[in-house]
Every structure is written in C-alpha cells, then in structure tokens.
C-alpha cells in the first residue's frame, strides 16, 4: 500500500475508534474504509483489529460475510446489473451479456480490468423500471441490450 493510502486508512480508522461504553463496530468500520479507499485490502485486517480491540478472525469473518464489501479494488467504473426477479423477467440477463460483450470486444481485455468492473447485484428496488443497470452509483432503467453501447460510451 502506498504511503498516501496508509495515511487515509489511519485517518479513517481513528474516526472509527469506539469510546466506552460504545462497542466497537466492525461492519461500520469496514464500510468507512471502503468508502475512503474503494475497497478493504485483506492485508490491513491486523491493523483494523488492533484499533478496534477485536481479533483478526472477527474482522476477517465480517469482511468475508458481506457481499458488498470488496477486498479487491474495482475498475474505474463499477457496473452492476440487477438480477432481481423483475429484471430477470424483463430479460436483464440479455443486458448483462450485452455489457460483458461490449466490455470484452469494444474496450478490450487489458483495458477491461482497469476501466470496468462488471458484476451482478441483488434487487436494486428499481423493479418498476426494470431491467436495471447501476453505473458508479447512477441507476439506469428500462435498459435493453441495444442501449448498451451508447450507455457505456461516455465512460470509456
């Protein structure tokens, strides 16, 4: 980890220190770190455990339990395709495939890892305008496969 990231981590951890009688909150701490660094690198588990006064295993247990906590840095753009039932019924699977194809064919394999992370997400609560694609926190609704190139063009 770079010095800069190390500093950001240390700063964030300071804000998560609990003052008795407050209990240390592992999940809240990990979410704070993720919001600062973009992910929670597994090698900082001991440092987190030490600040919170819990065991490494407790931190690792929480980190591995929640699917929205990531230990790898995502690409510059995070594309999440909803796989909830309404999106599935409205052919969200075809949209996911179109996005994967676009990223592979148009953006290219090497650039893909840096630029785009494509993943499935559980129901986004956007069911009334499904299928849903979430790009960097913005929701797009009623997406059809042929929309994909114009949708992603501005993120290239």
């Amino acid at each position, binding site marked *: 980890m770079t010095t800069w990231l190390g500093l950001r981590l240390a700063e964030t951890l300071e804000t998560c220190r609990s003052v008795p009688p407050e*209990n*240390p*909150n*592992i*999940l*809240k*701490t*990990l*979410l704070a770190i993720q919001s600062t660094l973009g992910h929670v690198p597994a090698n900082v588990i001991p440092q987190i455990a030490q600040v919170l006064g819990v065991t490494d295993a*407790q931190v690792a*247990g*929480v980190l591995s*339990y*929640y*699917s*929205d*906590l990531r230990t790898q840095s995502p690409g510059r753009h995070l594309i999440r395709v909803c*796989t*909830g*039932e*309404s999106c*599935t*019924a*409205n052919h969200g699977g075809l949209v996911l495939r179109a996005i994967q194809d676009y990223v592979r064919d148009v953006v290219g394999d090497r650039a893909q890892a840096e630029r785009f992370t494509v993943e499935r*997400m*559980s*129901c*986004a*609560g*956007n*069911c*009334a*305008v*499904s299928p*849903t694609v979430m790009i960097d*926190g913005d*929701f*797009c*609704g*009623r997406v059809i496969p042929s929309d994909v190139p114009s949708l992603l063009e501005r993120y290239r």
Partner: protein
Amino acid sequence: MKTVRCYLANDTSSRAAGAERLADAWSGRPEIQLIRTSSRGAFFLEPMVERDTPSGRKAWFNVAPDDLPRIVAGVGGTPVAEIPFLQQQTRFTFANFGITEPLALDEYQTRGGLKGLAAARSLPPEAIVEELRISRLRGRGGAAFPVWKKWQVAQQTESEQKYVVANADEGDAGTYCDRMIMEGDPFRLIEGMLICARAIGATRGYIYCRYEYPAAARAMRFAIQKAREADLLDCDDYPFDLEVAVGAGSYVCGEETALLESLEGRRGVVLAKPPYPAESGLYGNPTIVSNVLTFATIPNILVRGGAWHASLGTEGSRGTMALQLGGRVKQPGLVEIPFGLTLRDVLDRFGGGMAPGSRFKAVQVGGPLGSLFPDSQLDIPICYDTFAEAGAILGHGGIVVYDDQTNMVELARHFMAFTADESCGKCTPCRIGSVRGREILDRIQAGEGTAESLNLLRDLGETMKATSLCALGGRAPYPVLTAIEHFPDEFRVRAQG
C-alpha cells in the same frame, strides 16, 4: 416571460426512467421552475411532469426534453385526478406522494404530518399500545405479527436502555415501497419511530438501510438532521438519538435477529428465538424491530384512531397494503389499496394486463421466497390469511409477473441459487439443503436429471420447510416446488431418465 412551476419526481426509479435527463436538459431554462417531488408511483408513466391548473394538477406522461414547449403552453396533458391507476387507489400512507418535496418539513406538517406524534404525546404509553391493539395492525415486513403485542412486551420489559429499529433492508426482489417512503416521505418514518419510542420508552433509534439504497440513506440522514434542528427528536424531557446504519449486501439481514447482529457490526447471522428482540435485542436490551412501511402506517392510526384502521380491509388483515407491481406487467408501480381485492383484479385493474407482445405465465407474490401462482389460481383475495391457507405468503407486497418466455427450470434454479448465496450458514437445512437443491436443479437443467431427481427435490424441500431456523431456508422451497407443481411438464422433459 412568465415562469411556469412544474413538478418532476426525484425518486430513484423516476430518475432511472429519465427524470434526471429532463432536469439536466431544462436547467437554466427561464420559462420553467422545476420542483422536485416524491413520485406518485405510477412508474410506467415516468418521467412524468406536472403543473398546477385552476382545477388541480395536470400531468404529461413519458416526457422527452423537447416536450417542454407543449407543457409550458399547456397543450395536452391529463388531469392527475383522472389517471385510472391512481384514481382507483386508497392512499393513506402514500397520500403525499407526488405532491410534496420530500425534505420540506413545513409541507409535511401542512399536509397533516406530526399530528400523530402530537396525539401520541398527549396519551400515556399504555394508551398508544391500546390504540394499536384496536387498529389490528400487523407488521408489514413479511411476518405479519400483531404490532401491539411486540410493543407491549418492550413496554413492559424493565430496562435502562431501549431501542427502536426500522428495518430498511428491503431485500425482497420486486419490492420498493420502503425505498419510496425513505426517499419520498422520510418524516413519516421518523414520526412513526418517535411514536414507538414514546410508547416503549426508547431513547435511541436506528434505520438499518441496505447498501443498494444510497439515495434513501442520504434522504433519511438529511431528514433526521432537519428533525433535530426543529427539536422534534425529543421525547418528553429526554433526547431521542436517531441514526442511519448501512448494511453491506446480505439478504438475510432482513430477518430481525440477523439485522441486530449486523447493526452491532458482526456477521449477520440468524439467532434462535426466544428471546425475542422485544425482550432482549440490540446489545441485550428491549428492541422493537419493524419494517419501514409499518412505522409509516402508524402516524395515521394515531390521528384517525385505531377503529378507523380496523374498518379497512378484511377480517384478519386490516388497513391498506402497499403492493408493488413489477415484471412483465404493462403498468408497473405502487398500489395502495385496502386488503381484500383478488390478485387477478390487481393485475387487471392496476397492472393493465401484460406488457405488449407477452403472454401471462405465472405471478410470484412475496419476493424470492414467495409462491408462484398460475392463471387458474389468480382469484385469491390479497390478505394474510388466504395466502397462509394456500401455503403462500404476501410478504412485503412484491408482485412480479412472468411471461411465456420464462423457463421454469431456469427460474427454479435461480431461486435455489439465491438461497445458497444468501444463506447465513447457521442452520444445516438451509446451508447445505440450498446447495444440494441448486445442484439437483443444475442436473435437471443440463438434461441429466431423472424422475428420482424431482422426488429428491420435493423431499429436500419438505425437510428445509420443517427444520430451517428462519424463513430463508423455511420458505426457499416454495417457489421451486410451486414451479414444479404448476409446470410439471417443463421439469419432466428435462428429467426423463
């Protein structure tokens, strides 16, 4: 030039449907002033733009940026009061939707907000619980437990510290009414929680909001800040401390004991009950965990009285229910109506039939653990008891329609895989059963199943139903088994051997 005041929803789904594109395109245009409101929930009409007329609001549907001149000139448009989808609803909890600015506390008050809290503050705590008993309100999150019973237990349990927790981990696929409430009428949730705090003597509250709802968490934080500045977060002489906690993508955290574990920062694993959270919940203290919709229903009960609430709906299901239509239906959106209408009526009257070019195959009610209904079973009235008798659940009111292109084997596999992914791992039937179930469905899907595979799946399903610790494992077999029951040919064809 005269500036025309127009209204455009700022709800996540409205924005996803194009409201943001309109706002961007029209920003800086002197001829209009855009007021960003909550959404009426008629999402099939979004983006929808409204403006005032002497006879009430008028709306333009599915608006594109170059429709602006028409709207400014007042050409076309439909009076909002004449939109059938909205006209046929009975809106109490969602009465403000589409009308007010979500974070305008003064507008909330002008439209009757905070009157329920005032009523609660004029009553002794026992009388608040009594009003809820009369109302016969049942929890809207899925379990449908009588709300007053929970509150009474928490009220009568002696403790220095008690908590009120809003379950905003709306994980059921096909549901979005909690999101709408948090984004669109956040003070209603706060008011409901304050009434609960007063009734049980709680001094701290949390809104446990799922990670997928960033706009809802933002709106709630902002609304809490405003409520604090307006000195609303005070109960009698003690402050009521309210904050938003965010989850991290675990479906099972919608179960109350798992939610509390997660709120304490641990793995969101389900605990055996008893003790129930109302006696021993967050940090071992009495805690009321209720769904967002439940809390949002409560202010009206205090204003209009428990008897008013009990006068709506059916024998075992009083009041109104927020149904959320999605999937291959023509008119997806939010429908608030008293309990009792049949599923077919809801799909016809509000859903408007099927999306163009598709034919009905099945409808799933109650999220990913809900049963599937074929056309022959649509005449079931929507209430907790009829659904329980049919072995189904109403859950949180999600209704997802599937069309004839849906492959039932694939869908059944999707459901089992969902449970396998989301199982917290605490109990064996769910942890292992869901994985075995998914494997069996994988084999059937690959054409490698035998007649024995289906028997095994049924047997496994019955075991999971009977022995799982919580509803995730206990309900997971229902969508799979109802798919086999109603569409046996699709499974048999692939399980020949």
